[in-house]
């Protein structure tokens, strides 16, 4: 099924369809992750791959609005059509070559299962005291990677801001003057339904955030869900309404604070005499310290991710409003 969707993405020319197929592709691979007993990853892939990424692609498409125009054959030289196939085949050959000596899938004797990983499974219960091992590894053992991950998100947001408009005074006033053409406003039933649904989404996001120690989930997934709730609101009631609820300035502050909360936890542990991001010193004993550390860190991740996702979406759709307003001016 994955193969079919992927192939579809190659051959279909209509970009709308390709984006939707990509959404399906992500959903299927998320299901696949679930089947391989990786619920955390499945959750994230669904929220990101099937949710956020196609959303942004659609927004971009709305801004650029083009079909992949069928290329006149003459324009395609041998160079452009043969080279990719050659490169891809070579890479594929290398990959197939690599598989011959791999340990079989799910083979418990494979080295990956026998060196570093068992310690996480055996000791994290006593050292960290959280049932979800993925959360323990993510936030504590490899907490520094996750710090880097949060900074990657932050960097992306800086990029989107710099490319799609950073408001000097941060009030969002510049965008308010544009009439938002969100046509979903017409749909009255949608209004009623979503008004009831949005609180559910937000509450559920909190559940995912704080229950991440015991079940799949955590700051990142919660952040995306939380943002999804607001994005739904913005899609239905228009961007201005959404800006009235959370101003861009608030979002900027929120994401910087989220990042700093994570980094600051590390600095706090430095000041208390531990190594960077050593949570043991943050509580009365090691396990409590780990609990506190992971809680704060996950909160930081959640805040940052939610703020960044919202802000990115608002920038994209704010650009849309902006863009169409210009076009209408031209037509007059």
């Amino acid at each position, binding site marked *: 099924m994955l193969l079919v969707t992927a192939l579809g993405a190659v051959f279909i020319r209509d970009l709308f369809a390709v984006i939707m197929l990509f959404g399906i592709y992500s959903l299927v691979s998320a299901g696949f992750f679930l089947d391989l007993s990786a619920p955390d990853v499945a959750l994230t*892939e669904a929220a990101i791959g099937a949710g956020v990424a196609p959303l942004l692609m659609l927004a971009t498409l709305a801004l650029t609005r083009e079909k992949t125009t069928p290329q006149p054959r003459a324009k395609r030289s041998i160079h452009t059509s043969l080279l990719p196939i050659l490169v891809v085949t070579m890479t594929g050959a290398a990959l197939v070559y690599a598989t011959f000596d791999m340990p079989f899938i799910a083979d418990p004797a494979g080295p990956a299962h026998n060196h570093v990983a068992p310690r996480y499974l055996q000791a994290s219960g006593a050292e960290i005291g959280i049932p979800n091992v993925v959360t323990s590894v993510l936030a504590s053992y490899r907490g520094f990677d996750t710090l880097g991950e949060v900074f990657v998100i932050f960097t992306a947001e800086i990029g989107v801001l710099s490319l799609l408009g950073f408001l000097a005074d941060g009030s969002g006033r510049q965008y308010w003057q544009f009439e938002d053409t969100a046509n979903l406003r017409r749909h009255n039933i949608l209004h009623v339904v979503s008004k009831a649904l949005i609180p559910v989404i937000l509450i559920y996001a909190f559940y995912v955030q704080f229950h991440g120690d015991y079940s799949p989930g955590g700051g990142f997934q919660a952040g995306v869900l939380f943002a999804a709730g607001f994005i739904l609101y913005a899609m239905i009631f228009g961007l201005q309404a959404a800006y009235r609820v959370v101003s861009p300035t608030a979002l900027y502050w929120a994401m910087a604070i989220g990042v700093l909360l994570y980094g600051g936890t590390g600095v706090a542990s430095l000041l208390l005499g531990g190594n960077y991001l050593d949570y043991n010193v943050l509580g009365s004993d090691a396990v409590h310290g780990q609990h506190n550390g992971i809680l704060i860190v996950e909160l930081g991740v959640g805040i940052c991710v939610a703020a960044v996702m919202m802000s990115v979406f608002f920038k994209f759709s704010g650009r849309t409003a902006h863009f169409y307003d210009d076009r209408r001016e031209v037509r007059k």
Partner: protein
Amino acid sequence: MTTVLGLYNYWIVIALMMIGFYVVIAASNLIKKIIGLNIFQTSVFILYISIGMREGGAAPILKEGVEVYANPLPHVLILTAIVVGVATTALGLSLIVRIKEAYGSIEEDDIAEKDGSL
């Protein structure tokens, strides 16, 4: 025969990677390039998760009475990689928006024509 069966996951992953990689290189439309990139990356995620799978392994959430768990480390790595992927996507898409505004097109060939060389 066992080689083929024991490695089937990897073969699927490789096919997916090739498709994604081909789209990245060969597509002329910039949005499609980004989609290809995403497919490419997603297939790498599947590769990692396949590494982490273990026979009869439950999800790595500690529970009474469960002995065998899947390997949590690749899951963590992939969570990070997914985030990195979406960050790249967001950045690439905003670049596309700006390119469209500057050139009036998101086709690689058109852009190359307008710049003379690239």
